[in-house]
């Protein structure tokens, strides 16, 4: 038996038992439109790639991490100084999270600007918004785990924000902290969220999101759909997958290079009794919110400025979630105005982030 016969034998053994050819048939039937916005289709698979890397590196980190007040910081210090390749694994985990969230934002704004959420893809958008919130929650809960001064202070500030909401806000703060203040209970709770609860929700929502994309197919540009233009297509398998693989390899190369040359540092263990250090800042993806809260006046019409800002953000988030229903005629005047709002939001987020870093 030569190598080819052996390979065919193995393939047919699995085929008889799993029926994998159904998947390849489906993938070969699936088509990807080719137009000037096709490049944005690659962002979806790039997010999946970074998510996969985080799952794998997360498993590796869990072997050494100890989520207790006494050992959290020490276990990470040990991980990056004593464990062979530990610092690279941690750096890859941290950088892939940043890369993933950056691409999630790009993906989101591309969908918004190309109006891909229009009928019948409203639920795809809504599941995507939930995925964005979960990704940010992963970032927020993961930030506390090193248990250093900066992460403690940033978590104190972050978990204090819901307190501004008049109804139920205090309960949310207590629920997040596991008590009145950020303590060892908060650390254990955040670890639980980070490795158990959030992964369950993200896997369910990811499955739903991918199912909806497969069911509805890739969206066409708005103009092409309105004018009923013929758009060139490409089979997903293997033509588009090969193209995606080129992007994956490049992203992997960039990720490993950045992770090796710029590993995240670890500050000294957090002291619960010590005052907050200067220059407390959250992760870069929360900076625009952080800066917004910073510039809001202390009182607006005799109401706390923070309360007004947080309520305003909640309303905006609510509108954002229902955007496909609000923008139900994307080619009309309202649709164009909503596109302008998208550009304004991008500009605002960039300006606020840069201002916060200044």
């Amino acid at each position, binding site marked *: 038996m030569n190598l080819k016969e052996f390979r065919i034998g193995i393939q047919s053994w699995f085929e008889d038992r799993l029926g994998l050819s159904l998947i390849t048939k489906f993938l*070969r039937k699936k088509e990807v439109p080719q137009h000037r916005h096709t490049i944005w289709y690659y962002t979806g698979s790039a997010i999946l790639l970074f998510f996969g890397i985080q799952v794998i590196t997360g498993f*590796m980190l869990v072997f050494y991490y100890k989520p207790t007040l006494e050992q959290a910081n*020490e276990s990470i*210090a*040990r991980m*990056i*100084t*004593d*464990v*062979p*390749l*530990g*610092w690279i*694994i*941690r*750096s890859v985990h941290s950088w892939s999270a940043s890369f993933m969230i950056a691409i999630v934002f790009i993906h989101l704004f591309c969908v918004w600007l190309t109006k891909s959420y229009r009928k019948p893809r409203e639920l795809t958008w809504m599941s995507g918004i939930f995925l964005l919130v979960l990704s940010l929650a992963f970032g927020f809960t993961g930030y506390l785990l090193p248990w250093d001064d900066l992460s403690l202070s940033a978590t104190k500030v972050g978990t204090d924000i819901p307190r501004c909401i008049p109804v139920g806000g205090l309960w949310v703060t207590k629920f997040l902290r596991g008590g009145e203040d950020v303590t060892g209970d908060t650390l254990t709770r955040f670890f639980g969220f980070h490795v158990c609860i959030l992964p369950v929700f993200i896997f369910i929502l990811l499955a739903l999101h991918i199912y909806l994309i497969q069911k509805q197919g890739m969206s066409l540009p708005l103009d092409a759909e309105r004018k009923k233009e013929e758009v060139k297509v*490409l*089979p997903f398998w*293997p*033509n588009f997958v*090969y*193209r995606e*693989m*080129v992007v994956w*390899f*490049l992203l*992997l*190369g960039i990720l*490993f*290079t950045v992770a*090796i040359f710029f*590993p*995240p*540092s*670890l*500050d*000294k*263990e957090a002291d619960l009794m010590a005052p907050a250090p200067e220059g407390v800042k959250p992760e870069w993806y929360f900076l625009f919110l952080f800066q917004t809260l910073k510039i809001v006046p202390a009182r607006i019409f005799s109401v706390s400025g923070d309360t007004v800002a947080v309520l305003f953000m909640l309303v905006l988030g609510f509108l954002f979630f229902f955007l496909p229903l609000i923008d139900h005629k994307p080619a009309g005047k309202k649709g164009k105005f909503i596109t302008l709002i998208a550009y304004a939001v991008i500009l605002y987020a960039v300006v606020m982030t840069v201002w916060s870093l200044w």
Partner: protein
Amino acid sequence: MIRVRKPKALILLMICLFSAVFSLERSFGQQITPEKQEKSLQAESKPEKIIPSPKNIKERTALYVFIGWMWLAIFVLIFILRLKIKEADRLYRLKFFLKNKK
């Protein structure tokens, strides 16, 4: 028709890549000796900030070698993928898979 000897090239690249990774001093899964762990736990003066980096010149060199091999492997893989894309597009234009279905 373009023919790519991909299995051999891929196997060779994978061997190079993995050898570069495992040429580092020890593997990630290897256990730390109790003495070393005790030593780190007993460290009296904890540093203010730990900036992770390669410990010695050997580790640093191994990392540079790894990055070099990684990028070389990526460029070779992209070159192979470009050939595969051209071939897959050509077969699609010829409606090769539709013919097969019939």
